[in-house]
């Protein structure tokens, strides 16, 4: 993330951004760098400071220390210049339950002094269409399902063409179909040149949607970069399912790998070996195994998953780090 980013510029840049609530540190001096044009995954378990950071980026809450620049301008000092170019979904959608979906969008659109009145109806209709809510436009929001509210929240962020979209947990409450639609929406927005900053606690989502990611843990930024850069830390490995574990261990050791017996269930045993910096091709390994008399029931080269990296960085389980 050096040469290329400097040419394109950064959509979001923070330096030592920190937020304390009393004695508790919610965000602990993060240096976030979101390149323009990227789809940036902001990853971290619940309670790791993602939403607090987003609130500071959008000028909703004041940083205890550190600086923020959004779209090249300082926040919150230049809030009125910056925010018209930013669409946001922050900590879940929120609407007036007694108004219809379309009326809600019109209401929030009037709050934007830079949104032209003449095109308001057309823009509201367009945004509703884009998230597949046209049929429910005139329904009161209290009759909406969580997924529909989530879509309406995204529609609100799309009322005007934006340079930056900040989407906090955009697929929360959506069914698999809705999740896919959000993903393709993000892709099409990115194709139009919009920088998309997506927070999520779901790794798979970030892996499918994003070009870049940053990982938060307990208020600190523990990793950031392109997905490829984040993956590089892990290693590819051989995953072998066989009834002849002993033979497999022998052959793989002979190839210079360092195999271990992972599990042994009823019929098959699983042998795992890190490829390390050996340059064995998969077919060469299979040939060697077959030549060594090892019966192969399953063979795969597993790419390092971001999940392992994520878990390694943020810890496993449900513990919310305080």
């Amino acid at each position, binding site marked *: 993330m050096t040469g290329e980013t400097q040419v394109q510029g950064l959509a979001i840049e923070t330096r030592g951004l920190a937020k304390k609530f009393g004695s508790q540190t919610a965000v602990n001096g993060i240096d976030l760098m979101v390149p323009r044009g990227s789809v940036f995954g902001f990853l971290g378990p619940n309670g790791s400071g993602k939403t607090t950071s987003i*609130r500071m980026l*959008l*000028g*909703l*809450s*004041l940083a205890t220390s550190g600086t923020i620049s959004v*779209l090249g301008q300082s926040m919150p000092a230049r*809030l*009125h*210049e910056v*925010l*018209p*170019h*930013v669409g*946001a979904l*922050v*900590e*879940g*959608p*929120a*609407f*007036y*339950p*007694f*108004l219809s979906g379309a009326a809600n969008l*019109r*209401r*929030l*659109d*009037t*709050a*934007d*002094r*830079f*949104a*032209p*009145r003449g*095109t308001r109806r*057309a*823009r509201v209709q367009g945004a509703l269409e884009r998230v597949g809510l046209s049929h429910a436009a005139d329904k009161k929001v209290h009759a909406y399902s969580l997924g529909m509210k989530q879509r309406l929240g995204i529609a*609100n962020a799309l009322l*005007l*063409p934006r*340079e930056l979209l900040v989407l906090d947990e955009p697929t929360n409450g959506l069914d698999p179909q809705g999740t896919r639609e959000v993903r393709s929406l993000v892709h099409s927005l990115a194709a*139009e*040149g919009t920088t998309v900053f997506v927070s999520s606690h779901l790794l798979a989502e970030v892996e499918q949607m994003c070009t870049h990611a940053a990982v938060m843990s307990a208020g600190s930024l523990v990793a950031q970069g392109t997905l490829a850069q984040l993956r590089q830390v892990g290693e590819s490995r051989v995953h072998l399912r066989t009834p002849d574990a002993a033979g497999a261990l022998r052959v793989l050791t002979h190839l210079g790998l360092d195999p271990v017996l992972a599990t042994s269930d009823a019929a098959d045993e699983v042998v795992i070996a890190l490829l390390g910096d050996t340059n064995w091709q998969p077919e060469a390994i299979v040939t060697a195994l077959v030549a060594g008399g090892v019966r192969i029931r399953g063979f795969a080269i597993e790419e390092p998953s971001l999940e392992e990296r994520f878990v390694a960085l943020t810890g496993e389980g449900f513990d919310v780090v305080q």
Partner: protein
Amino acid sequence: MSSSEFLPQTQTHTRARVGGWDLLGSEISVLFRRRRTWAMLAAVALIPTLLAVAVRLSSSTLDPGEGPPFLDRVSQNGLFVGFTAMVVAIPLFLPLTIGVVAGDTIAGEASLGTLRYLLVAPTGRVRLLLIKYAGAALFCLVATLTLTVSGALIGAALFPVGPVTLLSGDTISVTESLWRSLLVAAYVTVSLLGLSMIGLFISTLTDVPVGAMAATIVVSVVAQLLDVIPQLDWLHPWLFSHYWLGFADLLRQPLDLGSFGQNAIVQVCYVAVFGALAYSRFVTKDILS
């Protein structure tokens, strides 16, 4: 900005400021699209109605001066229904409705979560405060007008209507007395502006609208309590509720606008002080709702 089909002029980094005060229109339409608002206005209209029906149905006539001011005159002249209802409504019922509307302004948006979306739209925080206050002030006007108009209508329906004898003993025509009614409505509207700003300030302190509503109503009750404690008479002219019942001066001939002016000055002071407090609280507030 590749897809600026809606805004062909926005090639540069600054987007033209359009829309202006559309949010004010939106605020008013949201306020008057709530069932709660209509329920309160219906309740306000019920006060003169109940009063007039009760007087109409009872056979006994009140001695002059018995009951609330003007009540004894209602059966002779329907135009007094509105005045009597105003006297009955100003100590508690009108402040209650104002408490609900003003207490809800910011805290209501915060509890819905829409406050954060209004602010990132972006609505300036100062602008939002001004618009919220304008909405509450408009509600004051609509509530007092509702009371005045429903009082005049029900009075005319149930009782004879004729020239009105004022407190000073002079008699004025029906048209003149309708003008005086509107003047009373204006007086009461102004009376409630201070309380509205107090409600707006309290509303910036919390994310729980019911709390802000209750606190605003309590403040209005406390102010009226302080107003009847003789030991605190130095304070009385500075209580926002001190001139609330002073509109009787508008029912004298010649018209005495003295208390109207004093009332207005006190209300302006409260609007200024609590407006400043609301401003200083809200512009630096962390929006965590």
